[in-house]
Structure formats: C-alpha cells, structure tokens
C-alpha cells in the first residue's frame, strides 16, 4: 500500500512537472504587437522624428515617408446594401522600416521595409467577422508605395488615389472569396490632427506622429462575402499617420474613436492609457462640422465612461464594449455600441477594431451615427 502511495505521488509530481513545462513552453510563443513595435527600444540611427509641425503638401504626402520608421493608411467604413444588408469594412496597409534606407545591392530582394495589411469585412447580417492579414516584402513590385498617383499595395490589396482633384480613392482587397471593391469620394477636406498635424503621443519630444484624416468619404462599390455580392453605399474615414517613435515606456495602449454623426459632424478622439489604466494628458481629438470648422478636443473636454465589457473567447482579452461619451462644450451626449462584439483581430497583433453605432442627443435634438473604434493593449 505504501508503495502504491509512493507511486501515486511520483506520478502526480511527474504530471505536474509536465504540465508546468508545457505551460512555460506555450507562454514562450511571442507575437508582434503594434504597441510593442511602436515603443520598442531605440530605433536604429538615421530615422527622422516628428518634432515640429510641418507644412503638408498633397497629393505628395499621401504617399510614403521612408525616413520615418512606421506609417499606415487606414480606411474604415460603415456601408449598407440595397437589399438591406449592412457591413463594416477595414482596409489598412502598414509600412514598417528596419532602417531609414536600403543598403545598395544587386539583389532585388534587398529591402529595408516590410508591409503589413489588414483587411476585414464585418457582416452584421450573418454575424461573421471576416479578417485577413497579409505581409509583404516590397521586392519585385509585390508590395510598396507609388508616388504619382499615390498608390499603396500588397499584391492585390491596394489603396489608390484615382482622382487627386476630386479626392476619389479606389480600395481593393480580396481573399478567400471575400472581396472589397469600392470607390471612396472625399466629402470633407483633408483635416490635420493635433498641433497642425503633429500628433503628440507622450510628453517626450519626438514621441509623436504626423497625422491627417479625411473624416468622411462617400463609399460606393461592391462587397462580396459567402452570402453573395452586394452593391453597397455608406461612409468611410481615412487616416494617414507616420512616425518613428510614438509610444513611450509605460504607455499600454489606446482607444481610438472615429464617429460620423447624422447632423454632419465628425469626431475623432483617442486616449492613450498608461499601465494603471489612466488616460494620459497628451490624448486628443477634434470635432469637425459639416461646414469644415475644426475644433480641437482635449481630455478635459471629453468624458468617456465604459458601460459594458466584452471578453474575447479567443484571446481572453477583456475589452470595453459600450461607452457613454459626453462633450459638454458641444452639447453632445452619445452612446456608442459595437455593431457586433466579434471584431477582434487575432493575428500578428491582437486588438479590437470594429464598426460601432451611435445614438444620443446633441443639445436636445436626437442624433445618430456610425463609426469605428480601435482598442489596443487589452491582451
């Protein structure tokens, strides 16, 4: 009997060791994170930093800024089909540089950049979040940025300014039977964010980006999902941002809101959170009226209360999933709700980026709207 007990103890000990080892090994599985990349150590020498406001020049500034370490072109939108289906879409192309310029080489593969693409269609009718990631090396013309006219692409995913005068963009992406093929027609002027386009991410000089948006673009085109091909119309938001060092140590992530209200006003606000979950003072945003009047929003102008949370079954991250937002200076009191919870990205980066719906009041008038919210740093 004693022997049996000893054997049992031995077995349990052995199993525990195995279990711990397995746990440790699986924990060693690292993945990229946007926040990680953006705050990662000191970048190699030679990159430029966003320190002072600079004049923007379009369409030149639509293309890439290779002297900066990271850059992204971000289209998000809410669309409806004639048959009553509604969708959210996201097409983002990132550029990350390893060094400010490529080493000279006879090899066409010798490049110093990598491109990353995120393409998602949120199908609210069927409740499916189709999301695809692509990485591309800008070799052999398989990914890259062209200046004239501006075009950013990874293989057959592309963002292209097809009519510079009119501000019409063409967005194309497809994978696994899910297709986005739409034109985005600018309905608002190019709007620079932060201090004349310099968007500070921390108090340290250089921890900033150059950032401009087109807050409202009319979308027309088609979306194909397994449920069929849909002619769609709606609104989109475009962001273009580039920087070398954005986040400082101790900053955990951010919540970014882009909202298009039924009264024609557009709101962008992001709050950077520190490790304690506090909103940092550098957080900022803007409100743009239909007439094109832009007002800066500081943290003290915007009260954001999380009213609900959602825990991702995939990553176990707990994300805010409903907000009460008050901007008293503009008489705005709105409720922001995800159009569906399942809009989490779980590939190279884990984050939540999803379409939201807005309801509430402006002064006493009821207003509604749609938008996109990005939640980073919750995993």
């Amino acid at each position, binding site marked *: 009997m004693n022997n049996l007990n000893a054997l049992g103890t031995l077995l349990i000990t052995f199993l525990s060791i195995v279990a711990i080892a397995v746990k440790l*090994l699986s924990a*060693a*599985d*690292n*993945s*990229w994170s946007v926040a990680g990349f953006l705050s990662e150590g000191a970048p*190699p020498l030679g990159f430029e930093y966003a320190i002072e406001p600079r004049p923007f020049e379009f369409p030149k500034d639509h293309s890439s800024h290779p002297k900066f370490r990271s850059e992204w072109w971000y289209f998000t939108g809410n669309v409806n089909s004639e048959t009553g289906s509604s969708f959210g879409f996201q097409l983002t192309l990132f550029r990350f540089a*390893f*060094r400010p310029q490529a*080493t000279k*080489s*006879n*090899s*066409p*593969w*010798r*490049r*110093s950049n*990598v491109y990353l693409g995120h393409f998602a269609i949120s199908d609210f009718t069927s409740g499916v979040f189709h999301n*695809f990631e*692509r*990485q*591309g*090396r800008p*070799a*052999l*013309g*398989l990914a890259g940025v062209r200046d004239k006219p501006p075009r950013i692409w990874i*293989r*057959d*995913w592309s963002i292209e300014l097809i009519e510079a005068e009119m501000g019409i963009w063409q967005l194309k992406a*497809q*994978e*696994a*039977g899910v297709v986005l093929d739409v034109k985005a027609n600018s309905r608002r002027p190019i709007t620079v964010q932060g201090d004349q386009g310099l968007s500070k991410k921390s108090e340290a000089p250089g921890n900033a980006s150059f950032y401009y948006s087109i807050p409202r673009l009319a979308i027309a085109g088609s979306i194909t999902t397994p449920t069929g091909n849909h002619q769609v119309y709606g609104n989109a938001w475009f962001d273009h941002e580039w920087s070398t060092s954005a986040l400082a140590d101790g900053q955990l992530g951010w919540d970014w809101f882009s909202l298009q209200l039924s009264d024609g006003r557009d709101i962008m606000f992001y709050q950077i959170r520190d490790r304690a979950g506090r909103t940092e003072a550098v957080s900022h945003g803007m409100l743009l009226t239909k007439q094109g009047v832009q007002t800066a929003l500081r943290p003290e102008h915007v009260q954001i209360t999380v009213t609900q949370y959602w825990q991702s079954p995939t990553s176990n991250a707990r994300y805010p999933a409903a907000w009460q937002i008050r901007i008293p200076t503009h008489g705005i009191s709105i409720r922001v709700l995800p159009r569906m919870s399942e809009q989490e990205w779980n*590939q*190279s980066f884990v984050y939540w980026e999803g379409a939201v719906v807005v309801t509430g009041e402006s002064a006493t008038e009821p207003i509604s709207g749609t938008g996109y919210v990005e939640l980073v740093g919750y995993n």
Partner: protein
Amino acid sequence: MSSLIYTAFSRHLIKHPWQLGLALLGIAVGVAVIVSIRLTQHSAFEAFDIATHTTMGQASHRLVGPKGLVTNEQYQRMVLAFPALPMTPVINQRLTLPEHGRAIELLGIDPISRTKFNPGGKVDRLWFEPEKLISEPRSAIISRTTAAELGLRTGSYLTVNYGPKTARLKIIALLPPPHSPGGLVKGLIIVDIATAQEVLQLYHGISHINLLINDNYTATHLNKTISAAYGDELELLDLAAESRRIKRMTAAFYSNLNALSLMALLVGMFLIYNTETFIILQRRKILGCLRALGVSRRQVLQSILIEASCIGVIGSLGGIILGVFLADSLLGIVSTTINDLYFKTSIDRLSVASTTLFGSFSVGVASTLLAALIPALQATRIEPTLMTNRNSVQPPNIRQICIIAGIIFFLCNLLSWFTLEYSQSPNAGFVGISLVVFGFAAICPLAIIALSAGTRWLLSSQRFLPERHGLRTVSTAVNRTGPASAALMIATAASIGIGIMIMSFRVSVSDWLDTALRADLYVSGEHFDNQSRGVKLSPAFVEKIERLDEVTSTSTVLRQQIKTPSGNVQLSAYKLNAAARQGFQFKVGDSEAIWVQWEDSDVVIITEPYAHHNLLDIGDDLQIKTNTGERRFQIVGIYADYASERGNISMSRNTYDRHWERDDYDGIGIYVAPNVSIADAASSVTAVINANSTIVVNSAAELKQTSLEVFDRTFLITELLRAIAVIVSVIGILGALLAQQLERTREYGVLRAIGFTIPEMGRTILTQTFLLGATAAMIAIPVGILIGVILIEVVNPRSFGWTMIMQIPTALMVKSFAIAVLAALGAGLYPSYRAARIEVTDAMRYE
C-alpha cells in the same frame, strides 16, 4: 503450495547463476539488437522530419524549376497569380568553409513570407529578430551545435565560399537544437534571401518556392493553372508524398537490418530453450517431490511459465537498456549511410520512441515464453515421486528424434519453398530464410548423433577410449546439446549468408564499375546531392576539351528529371563513342540491335531497378513528357546499373535533341591518347577549366574508389551487427556448454575414480565440445549458402531490382567454420581445467 514452488525455483536459480545469466543474456541480446535497429531508424526519420520542418516550416508543396532555378520573374508571376496563397522563396546551396575545411548548407529565406509557414502563422522571434536578419546585410543564424563545432559566437564572422566566390557572414544569433521550439538542425546556416543572392552572386532567381496549399486552392487546381501558365517551366511537388517516398526508399535498407535483428532474437530464443530444458532436467527431483506433495500439473506449468516470464521481463528490460546504448553508437554509421544514399540530414541525437521500446519488450517476453513452452510441457509429465532419481538422464529415443527432426526439416523447407515461389514481397524472402534456418536447426540433434556414431566407428581403437566416451555422452545428452549446437549453427549460418550476399554485391558493383567506367577521365559540375543542381558544362567548354592534344575522343551526358505516367525519373542523354558503348552490360536485349536503333529511333534503355519497380520489359513503350508534347519511346534494353535504387532511363543525345532543346551537358568522359599519362591529361583538362568554376575532374580509378567507399560505408552497419550477433552467440554457446560441463562434475568424479588420467579427462571434454562445434559449423555452411542464395536471388532483386553474381568466398567459410569450432573448443577449456583439479571423493558426493 505455490510459495513452496517459487521458493524451490528461486533457490535453484540462485544456486545456478550461470544458467540464469545465460538465459538473461540470450533474451537481452535479441531484444537489444531489435531495439537498436528500430531506434536508429526512428531517429533517422525523426531527424529527417525535423530538418524538413526547420527548412520548410509547414510547407505542403514546392515549386521547382527544371534546372533547379526559379527566376525572380517567375516568382513574381506566381505571387500575382495566387496573391492569397502562402508562398515563400527559398535558396539553398552547399558552401564550403575555407577556414574549417568543411561544408555547410546555406538556406536563404524570406522571414516575412515565411511567417505563414510557422506554427500558428506567427513571426518566429523566439531566438532571433527577423528584422535584423533582413535589414543587416550578411547577417546569419546557425545552431549552437554548429557554432560550437566551428568555434563561433554571436557576433563572430564566418567566411564562406561558393566556388571562387567568397563572403563573410556575421553570426547574429545562435539557435538551440532542433527539438527545442524554434530550434535548428546543425550544418545549416540561415540567411535572408537577399543575403543568399549576394553570397552566391546569383541575383536573377531562387532555388524553389515553398507553398502552403490550403482549402481554397487545391493542389490539382494549382497544378492545372501552373501547367497552363508555365508549361514545363515550373513543377509542383507534393512534399508529403516526397517525404513518404524518401522514407520508403530506406525501407529496403532497413529490411536487411531488421532480418538481422530477428536472427539475433532467434539465437536468443534457442538459448532460452536450452536453458529452460536444462533447468527442468535438473529439477526433475524437485518437481517429482513437489508433485508427490500434491502440486498439480497445471501448477507446475504455471509456475515454470511465470518463472520464464520473469526471466523474459528482466532480460528484455536489460535488452532495452543495452539496445539504447547500442543504437547510440550505431547512429553515426546509419547517419553516414543515409546521407550517402537517401537523404541529407544530420541525425543530432537518438530519439527514444516508447512504442518501439514497448514493442521490443513484448517481443522479448513473448519469445521467452514461447521458447520455454516445450520444456515446461515436458516438466508437467514428470511423475510424482519422493525417490531420489539420480539417473535422470534417459538416453534419447533416436528413432523418435529422427522422425520429428525429419518432419520439421521437410515441412519447414517445403513451406519456405512455397513462400519464396508464390509470394513476391521482399519480406517473403525473410520468412523463407527463417523457415530454412529453423528446418536445418531441427536436424542438428540428428547430425550430432550421426556424427558421433560415425566418429566412434572411425576411432574404434582402445587408444581413443576418452574420445569415444565423450562422443557417446554428447549423443546420449542430445536433447541438451542439440539446441546449443543449433544456436551456434544459426549464428554462423546467418553470418555466412550475409557475408556471401555482401561479397557478391561488392564484386558485382566493382565489376560493373570496371565495365561502366570506360573513359579515362570524367569532368562534371559538382553534384552535392540528388536535389541540388550541378554546374552545367557549355558546348564551348566541351569543344575546348576536345581540341586538347591529349584527348582522342569524348562522350557526354546530360541529365534531366522527366515526367512519366509513373512519376518523375532521371533521364540521361548520352553521346557515346564505341568504347563508351562497351560500358553498358545489357541484362535483357541484344546489344547490337540496340546500338543500331540507338541514334535515330525513339528508343530508350532502362536500368534494372527501373524495370523492376515499374514492371517494364523490352518492347514496352514508355510515355514521356517532352518539350514537343507527350511522346512514346520504346524500351529496347535493360542494363545493369547499381548507381540508383530508383533507377533511370537513358537515350541517345540525338534522340534527346529531337524532343528537347538544350545545348549543355552534365558530364564528359574523356579518352586519353595512348602515349599520354592520365595524370598529364588531367592537368591539361584542369587548365582548361576556369579557376572560378566548381567543375571537377576525376579519373576512372578515383570514381571507382569513391563508389566502393560509399558501398563499404553502406554495409558497415550490416557487418557490425553481424559481428555483434556472432560474438554474442559465441559467448552464449560458450556459456551453454560450460554450464552443461559443470553439471557433470559427478560424472567426472566417477571417471577419475575408474582410472581416467587428467589428460584423458581433457580429451573427453574437448571431444564433446568439438563435436558440437563441428556439427554446428558443418550444417551452417550449406545453410549459410542457402541464405546467401535467397538474399541474392530473392530479397535483393525484389527490394532493389538488382541482380548480382553470386560469390562463395572460401576464406569466409573457413573462417566461420574455425570460429564455430574454436568457440566450442573454448567452451571445453574451463571444464577440463576443473575436471583435472577435481577431488574424486567430493565429486562422487556431488548432487
């Protein structure tokens, strides 16, 4: 009551440690050999899988170009045609390390597109920064093992050569061994794809494209699209099928080794049988008493079998431990053979598979029980008696032995003949061999009796009384001496049989090399392995060689992978002169008729293995995909070739040129003018070769030597195992005979008491053991030759398709005979010594 039996048994065993040790050794060795063979095979496969995984990630398919090159433009077109399909470029090439005098395999990867090939599709940043590898030119990663071998650390520089091109790589990270997550096999240096192009100074392309074909794109759809868009430019390989094919190729190699391990087990079983029989004989008295005390037959059987299974368990456990150690030392040899013949992989460590261990353990225990069954059944027939029955050894019933032995012999050989005749599988050959061996083992007791009687008749003089006495006792104790002799016979016969096969194989290969290597010098682009491309020789280069004064004529060959309905095969297109034609030994087909059609008709000749594997004969048509479409080629000859196990196809260069458009060559055979020395001609040819190229010149003698070295390396493991089997069985026999002689102490006392002198005692004992050894050796020779015949005529043609000229080397026979007899004589020495020192009175009281 059972406890009484077990106490009796265990005390008996403790009092006879020799027997216990022998039984344990027998089973342990059998199990050890099985375990070691299985484990080395398992480790080789695992190493192959790990290497595959390290180099290819989870790639399922590979796109290759016809010349081992996919151009940048082809890659670009593929990516644009299938933008969502995970696809990654790879460059691999063997480089030399001038500072270390060895080679290393360069693997150029694109860490970005490779991401999709990592587990979970995540970036592999466990041990290094992919960004660093991409952005820092000339940066490289190697395994810690390789770093230690080369004396490198993170930050060290390593000079690599690709032909005349030199580059310095900076080691930015060291990776752990391949069994750790993110680990790396040794002998590999990983660089970014751009760095790889820069090191090789080949900027226009890559080696191949790895693909991960998912549900959206079935391989067939892709295949169709590729052949529509690219024709023959690119070819899609299914890596899983490739890996299976490569592993299957080694099956024949391992089947030889497995047969050898079974033979070892058989020897082990005979030792067990021998021991058990002997133990039962010794226990007749105890068993009789136990039966008289009320122990049932069933209890006797049960307890003997339980005892046997205990021995089986302990012996098998010992065998497993021994086997793991043996496997560890065999690994290096197996690794060399596998690298020579099958696939490039470095087997870093022994991988101990629990299933193998458990399987071998079960086989060990089961064999022990099986071997113990007959003696156990005999034990149940012991009548209950409390009388001391000293004369327990009954003279054997010769008639009965004759009949049983005759029946077993006849049945086994008949069955063996049937198996060999009616089954086509190579394994049937091994079953046949086992049956023949078993049949002959059965007549061992018979042979002992006959030989004993015959010798006694010869030594009828009174002077030979001690010898006659010895012969007589061997014959009367035949149920004890028979199995020992049979075990020795099996080991000797297996050794002779395998020896004959290897010798015949080697002679055939050597003859073939002598015939095939007609030219004096051979020039070729350096070939590293079956996959990598050699440097092609240009027509201008061939012309330059032909213009040399030292050269009278040349023959050329171009090799290419071609598609046939039964898969890909290597095609050799030969331009042959009269002398070179002599190099083909046709096994089937008339050489004159072949050479008449050779140049102008669409005919091919195929090698023996190719004919065998694809069931082809002359007169058959072979459908081959050519540049001008699918074409039929008639097979006009089957020729001897030991170079490739899969076999290949040959046609004339004229025929080739009618269907393909190529103007380069893979090799040139140079015929040197009669008055010029080969060394002088070689230096003139070397002078023509651009110092910057990797083209090599070899003389026929050098090629032959290298080929035979590879051959010898291949069979090194077989030789080694054979030696182990012989040594162990000799030790086993030694022990068995020794134990038997020691049991005769009382008999020796009697002999001494009736006036045997010490030398006469020695003569008696040595005669006994000599007779056993001689019987074993005499039967082993014909059995060994039979095994050799089956291996050569059945197993090898069926496994590989190779025929060979049988050789019966006299030296081997003599050596084996001598070893068997010496082993037996050696077993008599110690008992003789003991018998000489025996105190007559003590001995009489023994038992």
